[in-house]
């Protein structure tokens, strides 16, 4: 070898080493990079909520009394309503006045007596003669063409309704709501637990003229205490009231002639006074604040008698004094409450404390913007403070992702996944528990079916079948792995599922008949194996004898199935399962999944197990046989232990495959996110869930990030499984040697 050639060889050696090192590192880094990318999308779910004080505006408290106030969602313009009825719009940054609306009372010389702000910048103003107007302030961004296209916020006040003076005179306090059909509801509270309901319904008669029906009824009730606070639902259908003796009352106001008091609940045994009420977004849950400073939410739950009764569901934060006011977020199920010295933001669903702010500012009142992302609060000294809220994903916490949560309308806490619904004010149910459960359940049943088949198949092929046969079986099974999973899923869902559903009796019968028939035929074989033509079968062609037996048994089972169903299960096994065993039979269930996913798992597990079995050195096999071991003894005592690292690895890689499998489970599981171990039910695995929901998830929304989080979990699950597998494999290898 001359020097130049030697140099070249060495150079190539170096080069190859570099290429291999760089390639290997690149693979490791890209896997880590993918994990980092996915995790990066999901991490903002757990960002801490923040409230940032934006502006402080000092108002002239000496010359004006503020009755109500509000601000636009851009935090640029705000308004205040003064006690003489004047509305002043002002710049929120410096407090400078922009515009002034003169009072607009229903009659000359009236002044506002009571004001209730509700909903999207609406206010019900009770005037000094008992009449009540409902108006709405509207802000609109606007680009001024005359002024260099400068952006301005336009504002206007829209009158919505006018209620006449009630028959009983001027009330202490009134609340009014207008629903989408134009029904106007007003509730008036007078001293001495006297409540009246005024309803104005505008309808069209057959001539096309407007007709107004006005009714006024007294809402009578018995209470040991005095009414302290009221809340009317957004459509004016429900009325809730609290008393100073800890009672909660609930009315249903749909029938205007006979409004119905549904229940009176002694909410607090210690008879503490209820000081604040409001309805959480969606008008199902009632947020209750009391004199001890406790905030809790309530909604009607079915009791033992089957009646819906208000029940305390969630206990939120505790103030250090009476709760003064509660406002619901217009965006989600969070609740802001004002105590003696601070504001607290809680998420109802998970009872998660999000934020406390405005400590020691002397706050007396506050408003939320229509988007719920900013707060304007008034202090005793007449300062207006505004906060910008940054709560990226309030509904996500470890509790809601993995624990049981009591959702609105449910009778108990549950694990649930329901990411979207028909209405905007639904409670997103993003529990990953049923999905992880689904993944594990599907994998479990698939492995239960696939692993014994794959391993026994591998043992047979490598140890008992003739080498010629092995040359056929192995590539054939490997081709199975090449079948696109969408085809497997498609066949499972559209061909296998209906087939099994139709002949369920036959399927069960063959489960009993098949092993029995195999046992019998093996016993028969013991006698027949000495006969000359059959003897030739024994070495590697036994399956030829077994095949007709299996086919025949299945045929018999299929033929007898319906008859058996008629005989024992009243003709319908599914119905019997449901009524007698209490299990529902889903057409897409774990039997289907076991078959279909088994189809995906078997080839990998089989190939790896077969390789490792075949790679056990012949010298070991010879040693065992030479000591007088039978073929099976050799397999059981020598080949299997020696091949165990490979068999284990094959099983684990099959497991990893089943965990990550998407297309088959997507098509054949039914995608029902339930937590039921029953083999007759479907499930929704993590992977299928991502595939189903990611196209519909708004980018960077909670659902979107939660799906990425579930991808991280999937990633970690496979990583952990593979790591454990590798560790176990190494130990087995150390124990049984390397060949």
């Amino acid at each position, binding site marked *: 070898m001359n020097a130049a050639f030697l140099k070249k060889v060495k150079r190539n050696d170096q080069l190859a080493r570099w290429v291999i090192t760089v390639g290997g590192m690149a693979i490791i880094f890209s896997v880590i990079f993918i994990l980092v990318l996915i995790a990066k999308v999901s991490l903002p779910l757990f960002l801490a909520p923040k409230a940032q004080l934006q502006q402080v505006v000092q108002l002239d408290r000496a010359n004006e009394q503020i009755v109500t106030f509000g601000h636009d969602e851009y935090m640029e313009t705000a308004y205040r309503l003064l006690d003489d009825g004047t509305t002043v719009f002002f710049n929120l940054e410096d407090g400078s006045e922009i515009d002034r609306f003169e009072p607009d009372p229903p009659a000359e010389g009236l002044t506002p007596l009571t004001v209730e702000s509700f909903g999207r910048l609406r206010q019900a103003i009770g005037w000094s003669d008992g009449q009540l107007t409902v108006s709405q302030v509207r802000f609109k961004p606007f680009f001024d063409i005359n002024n260099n296209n400068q952006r301005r916020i336009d504002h206007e006040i829209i009158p919505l309704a006018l209620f006449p003076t009630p028959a009983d005179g001027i009330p202490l306090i009134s609340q009014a709501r207008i629903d989408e059909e134009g029904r106007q509801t007003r509730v008036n509270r007078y001293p001495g637990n006297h409540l009246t309901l005024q309803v104005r319904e505008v309808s069209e008669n057959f001539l096309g003229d407007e007709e107004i029906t006005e009714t006024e009824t007294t809402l009578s009730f018995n209470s040991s205490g005095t009414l302290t606070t009221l809340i009317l639902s957004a459509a004016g259908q429900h009325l809730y009231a609290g008393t100073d003796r800890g009672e909660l009352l609930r009315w249903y106001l749909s029938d205007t002639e006979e409004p119905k008091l549904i229940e009176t609940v002694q909410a607090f045994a210690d008879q503490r006074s209820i000081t604040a009420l409001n309805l959480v977004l969606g008008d199902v849950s009632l947020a209750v604040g009391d004199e001890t400073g406790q905030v809790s939410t309530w909604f009607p739950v079915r009791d033992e008698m089957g009646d819906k009764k208000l029940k305390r569901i969630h206990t939120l934060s505790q103030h250090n004094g009476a709760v003064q006011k509660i406002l619901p977020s217009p965006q989600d199920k969070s609740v802001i409450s004002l105590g003696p010295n601070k504001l607290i933001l809680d998420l109802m669903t998970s009872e998660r404390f999000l934020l406390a702010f405005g400590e020691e500012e002397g706050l007396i009142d506050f408003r939320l913007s229509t988007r719920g992302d900013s707060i304007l609060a008034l202090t005793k000294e007449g300062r207006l403070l505004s906060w910008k809220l940054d709560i990226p994903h309030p509904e996500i916490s470890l509790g809601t992702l993995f624990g049981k949560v009591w959702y609105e309308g449910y009778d108990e806490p549950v694990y649930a996944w329901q990411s979207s619904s028909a209405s905007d004010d639904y409670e997103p149910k993003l529990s990953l528990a049923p999905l992880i459960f689904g993944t594990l359940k599907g994998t479990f049943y698939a492995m239960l079916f696939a692993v014994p088949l794959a391993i026994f198949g591998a043992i047979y092929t490598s140890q008992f079948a003739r*080498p010629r046969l092995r040359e056929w079986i192995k590539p054939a099974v490997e081709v199975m792995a090449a079948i696109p999973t969408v085809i497997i899923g498609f066949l499972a869902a559209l061909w296998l599922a209906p087939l099994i559903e139709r002949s369920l009796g036959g399927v069960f019968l063959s489960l009993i008949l098949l092993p029995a028939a195999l046992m019998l035929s093996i016993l028969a074989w013991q006698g027949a194996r000495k006969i000359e033509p059959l003897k030739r079968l024994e070495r590697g062609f036994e399956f030829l004898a077994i095949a007709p037996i299996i086919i025949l048994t299945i045929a018999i089972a299929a033929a007898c199935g319906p008859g058996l169903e008629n005989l024992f299960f009243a003709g319908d096994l599914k119905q019997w399962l449901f009524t007698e065993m209490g299990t529902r039979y889903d057409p897409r269930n774990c039997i289907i999944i076991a078959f279909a996913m088994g189809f995906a798992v078997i080839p990998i597990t089989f190939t790896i197990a077969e390789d490792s079995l075949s790679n056990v050195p012949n010298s070991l096999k010879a040693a065992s046989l030479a*000591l*007088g071991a039978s073929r099976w003894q050799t397999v059981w005592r020598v080949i299997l232990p020696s091949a165990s690292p490979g068999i284990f690895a094959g099983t684990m890689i099959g497991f990893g495959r089943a965990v990550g499998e998407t297309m088959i489970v997507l098509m054949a599981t039914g995608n029902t996110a339930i937590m039921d171990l029953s083999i007759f039910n479907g499930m929704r695995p993590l992977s299928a869930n991502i595939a189903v929901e990611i196209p519909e998830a708004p980018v960077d929304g909670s659902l979107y990030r939660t799906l990425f989080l579930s991808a991280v979990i999937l990633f970690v699950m496979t990583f952990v499984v593979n790591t454990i597998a590798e560790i176990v494999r190494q130990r087995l290898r150390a124990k049984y040697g390397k060949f």
Partner: protein
Amino acid sequence: MTDYKPANPVLEVQDLRFYYGDSRAIHGVDITFPEKQVTALIGPSGCGKSTLLRCFNRMNDLIDISRVEGKVLLDGQNIYDKSTDIIELRRQVGMVFQKSNPFPKSIYENVIYGLRIAGEKDKALFDERVETSLRGAALWDEVKDRLHDSALGLSGGQMQRLCIARAIAVNPKVILMDEPCSALDPKSTARVEELIGELRKNFTIIIVTHNMQQAARVSDNTAFLFEGNLIEYGPTDQLFVKPQNKQTEDYITGRFG
């Protein structure tokens, strides 16, 4: 001198022919192995000595396309009879392979493997057999403190002696050795050879070897095979000193092989 008939025959081979598919590897061999002696089979590579050896415990049955004609009598009973139980046969005719092949189990489990597969469960018997077999294989003193360690931790020579211990644990009549020292260093070889000398007191040993010095050192009788034929068979000292056949002489003097 292929008609050499030693006394006290244990294994008698009559007109044995062996085929791999259509090609014949052994062309009618007649040979008799005497009890409690060491017989060496020598010959150049590919002469069929290993194949012949494997006919004695029917290990060749594992080869799909093989076929055997003729008789091999073990205590007068033809092992190729249909009534012969292969498992029983292999318990009487043990084997030690060219490459040591201990099971990936403990030393203890390796030794009692033959007993276990025969359905033996007696712990006391196991303990006793492990000791006698390991002593018999001159391994006891080296491993008695680590009987439950993996056999794969032993040295090459120890492993081969463990394989011998494993073979003698079931008390066979005959032990077949297929070049047992070819993968060992000289020192280990010497120990195994010494061991063979001890074992001949209790067992009939048939050893295939490449190494003529080894055959000369350990064996009582030697058979020279060439191209599937038994060329010469006789007491070792005679065959090496005064070979009757030209081919034998050429081989043992190193003219071919």
